[in-house]
């Protein structure tokens, strides 16, 4: 393999998009209103498209003949390295929007930096994806504010969503030898400012939404190393069903 660290970085990036795209696709036909059904499936499509570009490129870097389908649909559970946040179940519409918002607020500043990667293909994927992510963040931010600053019922429920999902947010900033190696070799630009940018976004939106960040410090991490929550196996069984039942099938 030409660059093991780059391969692992691309898997993390690609798996986040793939798994969140799969979760959003579960809303297809179940959205609370038609416009939101269409919005969530459109965002899902963007994410799955991004995952295809990223995982295809991961396959090129790995150089073992695996493409986005093989990497996306035929790995075992412990080989997926997405964030625990993105695999959490959809819950109600508020839970889905909160999961999306915490993620979008992170993805936008991440892509804004990856655009300057010295790796041309990674920079091209980031540039393409950033344009889409801006629309996603606007959509999820507006819903958090609308629900939080809405009725008593919607306020209580979106506050509960935040209380449930907050514990998965620290993993967004997980960093290890993969990132260090890529920063050293100049493939990754300096990513250190992402966290403060993310905090500024979430604080501003939560303030307008009149909801508060929970004070307990529980943190759940492990996804980046392949340790998943109990929900993940069920998600995979659905995601992988067709390729497992009909190996090598083409759509």
């Amino acid at each position, binding site marked *: 393999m030409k660059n093991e660290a780059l391969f692992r970085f691309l898997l993390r990036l690609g798996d986040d998009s793939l798994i969140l795209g799969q979760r959003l696709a579960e809303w297809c036909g179940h959205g609370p209103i038609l416009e939101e059904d*269409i919005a969530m499936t459109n965002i899902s*499509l*963007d994410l799955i498209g*991004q995952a295809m570009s990223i995982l295809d490129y991961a396959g090129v870097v790995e150089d073992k003949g695996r493409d986005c389908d093989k990497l996306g649909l035929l790995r075992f559970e412990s080989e997926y390295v997405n964030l625990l946040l993105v695999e959490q179940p959809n819950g109600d519409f508020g839970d889905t929007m909160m999961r999306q918002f915490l993620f979008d607020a992170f993805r936008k500043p991440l892509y804004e930096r990856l655009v300057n990667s010295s790796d041309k293909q990674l920079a091209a994927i980031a540039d*393409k994806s950033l344009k889409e992510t801006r629309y996603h963040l*606007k959509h999820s931010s507006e819903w958090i504010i609308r629900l939080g600053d809405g009725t008593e019922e919607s306020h209580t429920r979106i506050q509960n969503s935040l209380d449930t999902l907050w514990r998965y947010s620290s993993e967004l900033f997980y960093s290890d030898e993969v990132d260090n190696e890529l920063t050293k070799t100049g493939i990754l630009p300096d990513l250190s400012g992402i966290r403060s940018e993310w905090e500024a976004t979430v604080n501003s939106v939560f303030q307008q939404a009149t909801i508060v960040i929970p004070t307990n410090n529980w943190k759940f991490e492990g996804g980046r190393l392949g340790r998943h929550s109990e929900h993940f196996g069920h998600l995979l069984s659905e995601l992988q069903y067709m390729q497992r039942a009909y190996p090598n099938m083409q759509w």
Partner: protein
Amino acid sequence: MVDKAQIYSWLEEVSDPEIPVLSVIDLGVVRNAQIIDGDWLITITPTYSGCPAMKTMEEDILSKLKEKGVDSVKVELVLAPAWSTDWLSENGRMKLREYGIAPPEHEVDKSVLFAEPTVVPCPKCGSRNTRMVSQFGSTACKALYQCNECQEPYDYFKCLK
């Protein structure tokens, strides 16, 4: 001898499967056509990452050129530079309007939360008294609008830059 202009004019006959009034040339997804080692290489770029029409366009380009007698053709997908709605041709914008889809205004929807959405004139009656129904429409590239004058609901080919 087939040249690049000839290839482009044949590709005018290949339409976007989701917006059949537009050709792949109008849409701006065809980036180049060149001969590499005796084979034509057609370079295309996706509008949105997940655009499900790309695969169909690729196959349609191949079969159109075969039909015209160009046998050794390859289609390659590139991501950079990223497609933007500025690549949509003038001709394409006109065809969209006639088809009932409002072409992109040269203005990205503001990322400011709850900003007033872009004013998009109604493709039926031309009124500017319209409203956005949803930022996300029937395909990745469109938003949904409605005219307050004639009540026509219509797609807006949203601006991507």
